[in-house]
C-alpha cells in the first residue's frame, strides 16, 4: 500500500493515487489524477470499458455542488470537499481519521443545524445543463465509435436480412438478448425496515446493516477471502475488468434526491448509501457553491472503498442508461442494414389474387344459402326466445355501436332482428353512440327495405352518455333541472323492455357490461356482434349478465328472416376462404419443415 500512495505537492502528505484532492490540506492533486487502464488517446474504447475509464470525468460532472450529504464515516484515503476558505489544520496529536471526521462534520454541519435540503440554485441549474451536455457529448462519442465499429462489421454482413431459417436478423438478435434461465435478472429492490417511509429506491443493495457498518469501518470480509486490514486498500486487476452489469453482487443503493426546481430553498437530502465492493467510484471534488449548498464528494473507489454519491433522478437514469450501453458492448448488438433488399412482395400479391379469385368465383358460382345450424347455440336460442317473448307495444331500445368496417359482418343479423321486431309490432327506439351510426342506420334502412325504422339519434359522449342515461330518473329533481331533451319526455332506461346493443369491439362489450348492464333489469340486455366476440360474450352470458347474444353468421342463420338476405353473404365464399387459410397454414408447416431438413443436411454435409 505504501508504495502506491502519492505525495501531495502542497503539504507533502500521503494520498491515494486516485485521490483528486489531498485529504490533509484539501488542495487539488490534479497532476496525480489518473486511473489504471485509462485510455489517454481520447478515443472511446470499443471493448467494455473499465469502470474507471470515462467514469471519473462523468461522475465528477455529475456532482452537484448545491446538494450536500456525505454519508458514513470516511474511510482512510477518502477525500472530501473542502472549500478554499476551509483549510484543514492537522494536529499531530489527533489521529488522522479523527481529524477527517471533524473536517467532514464541519463541512456537513457548519452551524450544527439540522440538515436541510437545498434547492436548485441558478448555478446548480447551469451546472446541470453543462453536465447534461457533457454527458450527451460523451454518449455521442460512444455511439459514434460503436457505429464505426458496426459499419466495419456490416461489410461482412450478408446482404439478406433474413437468416437461413427465414427469421429476421433483428428478431434473432432480440432472442439472443433474452437472458438464459440461470441469468435472469432479479427485479426486487429489497428495502430495509428503517427505510419504510423513505422515497422508493431503484437500486438493490442486499446489504444488511451490520455488513454495511463493517464495510464503512473497513472491516468487511468476503466470505472466502482473508480479512483485509482496513488501512490497506487493495486495488486488484479484477476491478479493472469487471463489468458493472455482469456482476452478480448487490448493486449500489442510492437514494435519489429529486430536486424541486420551483422551490427556492430546498432541504439538503441525506441519502443513505451502501456499497458494492467491486464498483469503483471516483473522488470528485466540488467547490462549495455561493449559496448554502454543500459540495458532494466522490472518491475513486477500490473494491472496498465507499462512494459518496448523490445523484439526481435524471442523472441516475442517465447513469443507468450508460450502464446498459456498457453492458451491451461485446454482446450481440444490432448491426445496421446496408442496402437491405426489398422483401418479396410478389408472393403476397399472388396470395391476395388467389384469395380474391377464389372468393369472387365462389360468390358468382356457388350456393349462397347459409345453412341453419341443427342445434343453435344456447345463447342464440336465448336471444331468439327473448325476442319471442316480446308483446306488441313493448319498448325496445336498439343502440348501434359498431364501425363501418364491421358492417358487412353484422348487418345481416341486425336486419334479420329488425324484421322480427317489426313483425312483433314493438316500439323501436334507435340510438347510436358514434356519429358513424347515423349513416349506418341509413344504409340499413335503405339496403334492407326497413323504411319504417325510426330515425337514429346520437347519444353525446358515447358510453358516458349511456351511463348518464342509466342514472336518469325523471323524478330526480336534480336531474330534472340539469337535463332537458328538447322538450320531449325522456325515457329512462328502465322503461325499455329490451335493450339491444349492436357492437363490434371487445372493449365496447366490456364497457357496456361493466358500466350499464347492472342498471338494467335482469336479462333485458341483448347483443349482436361479429363471430370473434363470441368468446367475450359467453363469459357474460354464463354469469347471467346477458340475456342472449348473436355472434356471427352461424347464429344469424338461426333466424328465419335470414334466408331472404343470403344474397349478401355467400356461404360458399366463406368456405373457400377457410380452405385457402387451411392450405396456407399447411404450406407454412411444410415450408418450415423443409427449411429445417435442408439446414440439417447442410450441417451434416459440413
Amino acid at each position, binding site marked *: 500500500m505504501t508504495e502506491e500512495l502519492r505525495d501531495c505537492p502542497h503539504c507533502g502528505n500521503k494520498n491515494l493515487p486516485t485521490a483528486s484532492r489531498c485529504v490533509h490540506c484539501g488542495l487539488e492533486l490534479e497532476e496525480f489524477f489518473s486511473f489504471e487502464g485509462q485510455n489517454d488517446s481520447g478515443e472511446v474504447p470499443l471493448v467494455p470499458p473499465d469502470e474507471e475509464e470515462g467514469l471519473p470525468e462523468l461522475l465528477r460532472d455529475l456532482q452537484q455542488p448545491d446538494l450536500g450529504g456525505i454519508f458514513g464515516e470516511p474511510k482512510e484515503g477518502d477525500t472530501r470537499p473542502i472549500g478554499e476558505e476551509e483549510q484543514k489544520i492537522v494536529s499531530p496529536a489527533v489521529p488522522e481519521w479523527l481529524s477527517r471526521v471533524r473536517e467532514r462534520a464541519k463541512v456537513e454541519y457548519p452551524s450544527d443545524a439540522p440538515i436541510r435540503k437545498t434547492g436548485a440554485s441558478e448555478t446548480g441549474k447551469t451546472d446541470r445543463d453543462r453536465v447534461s451536455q457533457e454527458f450527451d457529448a460523451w454518449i455521442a462519442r460512444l455511439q459514434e465509435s460503436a457505429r464505426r465499429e458496426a459499419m466495419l462489421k456490416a461489410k461482412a454482413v450478408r446482404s439478406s436480412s433474413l437468416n437461413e431459417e*427465414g427469421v429476421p436478423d433483428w428478431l434473432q438478435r432480440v432472442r439472443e438478448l433474452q437472458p438464459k434461465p440461470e441469468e435472469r435478472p432479479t427485479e426486487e429492490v429489497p428495502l430495509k425496515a428503517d427505510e419504510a417511509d423513505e422515497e422508493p429506491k431503484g437500486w438493490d443493495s442486499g446489504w444488511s446493516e451490520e455488513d454495511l457498518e463493517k464495510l464503512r469501518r473497513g472491516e468487511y470480509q468476503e466470505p472466502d477471502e482473508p480479512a483485509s486490514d482496513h488501512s490497506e486498500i487493495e486495488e486488484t486487476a479484477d476491478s479493472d475488468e469487471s463489468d458493472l452489469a455482469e456482476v452478480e453482487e448487490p448493486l449500489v443503493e442510492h437514494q435519489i434526491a429529486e430536486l424541486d426546481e420551483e422551490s427556492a430553498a430546498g432541504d439538503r437530502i441525506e441519502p443513505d448509501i451502501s456499497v458494492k465492493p467491486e464498483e469503483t467510484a471516483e473522488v470528485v471534488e466540488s467547490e462549495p457553491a455561493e449559496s448554502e449548498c454543500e459540495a458532494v464528494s466522490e472518491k475513486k473507489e477500490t473494491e472496498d472503498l465507499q462512494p459518496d454519491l448523490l445523484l439526481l433522478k435524471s442523472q441516475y437514469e442517465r447513469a443507468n442508461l450508460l450502464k446498459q450501453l456498457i453492458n451491451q458492448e461485446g454482446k450481440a448488438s444490432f448491426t445496421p442494414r446496408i442496402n437491405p433488399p426489398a422483401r418479396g412482395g410478389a408472393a403476397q400479391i399472388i396470395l391476395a389474387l388467389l384469395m380474391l379469385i377464389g372468393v369472387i368465383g365462389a360468390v358468382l358460382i356457388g350456393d349462397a344459402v347459409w345453412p341453419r345450424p341443427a342445434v343453435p347455440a344456447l345463447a342464440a336460442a336465448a336471444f331468439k326466445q327473448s325476442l319471442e317473448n316480446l308483446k306488441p307495444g313493448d319498448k325496445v331500445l336498439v343502440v348501434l355501436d359498431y364501425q363501418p*368496417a364491421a*358492417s358487412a359482418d353484422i348487418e345481416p343479423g341486425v336486419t334479420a332482428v329488425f324484421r322480427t321486431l317489426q313483425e312483433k309490432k314493438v316500439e323501436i327506439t334507435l340510438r347510436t353512440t358514434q356519429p358513424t351510426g347515423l*349513416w349506418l342506420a*341509413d344504409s340499413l334502412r335503405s339496403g334492407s327495405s326497413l323504411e319504417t325504422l325510426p330515425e337514429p339519434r346520437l347519444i353525446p359522449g358515447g358510453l358516458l352518455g349511456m351511463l348518464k342515461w342509466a342514472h336518469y330518473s325523471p323524478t330526480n329533481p336534480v*336531474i330534472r333541472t*340539469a337535463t332537458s331533451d328538447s322538450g320531449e319526455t325522456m325515457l329512462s332506461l328502465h322503461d325499455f323492455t329490451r335493450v339491444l346493443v349492436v357492437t363490434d369491439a371487445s372493449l365496447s362489450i366490456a364497457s357496456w357490461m361493466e358500466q350499464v348492464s347492472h342498471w338494467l333489469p335482469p336479462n333485458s340486455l341483448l347483443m349482436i356482434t361479429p363471430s370473434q366476440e363470441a*368468446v367475450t360474450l359467453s363469459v357474460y352470458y354464463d354469469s347471467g349478465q346477458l340475456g342472449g347474444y348473436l355472434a356471427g353468421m352461424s347464429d344469424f342463420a338461426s333466424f328465419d328472416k335470414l334466408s331472404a338476405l343470403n344474397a349478401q353473404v355467400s356461404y360458399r365464399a366463406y368456405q373457400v376462404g377457410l380452405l385457402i387459410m387451411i392450405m396456407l397454414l399447411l404450406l407454412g408447416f411444410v415450408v418450415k419443415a423443409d427449411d429445417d431438413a435442408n439446414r440439417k443436411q447442410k450441417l451434416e454435409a459440413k
Partner: protein
Amino acid sequence: MKRIIPLFVATLTSFFVLAGLIWPVSLGGYLNIVLDWAIIVGAMALLVAIAHLFLAQWRKIARGNRSSFYSLVFVIVFLLSLGGGLVMGVDDPEYRLWISSIQKPLEVSLLGLAAVVMAGAGVQFYRTRGWSPLTVAFGVSALVFLVIGLGFLQVLNSPPVNAIIKTLQMLPLIGARGLLIGMSFGALIVALKALTGEGVGND
C-alpha cells in the same frame, strides 16, 4: 404543486363517481352533472386533437415533405366533409349517403386487406416464430377449427361427430376465459392505480 392539483382533482372525481354509483338516489343527480362535464371535456379533447391533426398535415404541406401530397388530399377531403356537414347538416340524407358511400367501402376493404395479410402471415408464421409449444398448439387448433368451420363434418349428421365437435368448440371458450380472468385482474389493478392518481404515466 403543479402536479398535485390535477392528481387531486382526478382522485376526487374518481371517488365521487364511485360514490355516485353506490348511492344513486342521493348523488345520482350530481353524478349526471359530473358526467356531463366529462362528456364536454372529452368532446373538446377530440376537437383539439382534430385541429392539431389538421395543423400537422398543413405544416407538412407547407414544408413540402415527401408525403405532402397525401397531406393535401387529407386537408381537401377534411375541408369538404367539414364544409358539407356545416352547410347541409348532419341530418341531411344526401350528406349521410355521401359520407357512408366513401367511408363504408374504405373501412370494409381495409378489414378485407387485413384478412388477406393475416392469411399470408400464416405461411411465414413458423419461419418467424419457430417451433414452440405455443406455435404448434396454435397451428393444430387453427387447423381443427377451420375444418370444423367448413361445415363438412356437420353434414355427416353423426351424433358422435357432433358431440366431438361440440366439445371441441368449448375449448377455445375455456382457454379464452382464463385469459379474460387474468386481463380483468390486471385491469382492476390498473384502475385502482388510476383511482389513486398513479395512472397517467406516473409510476
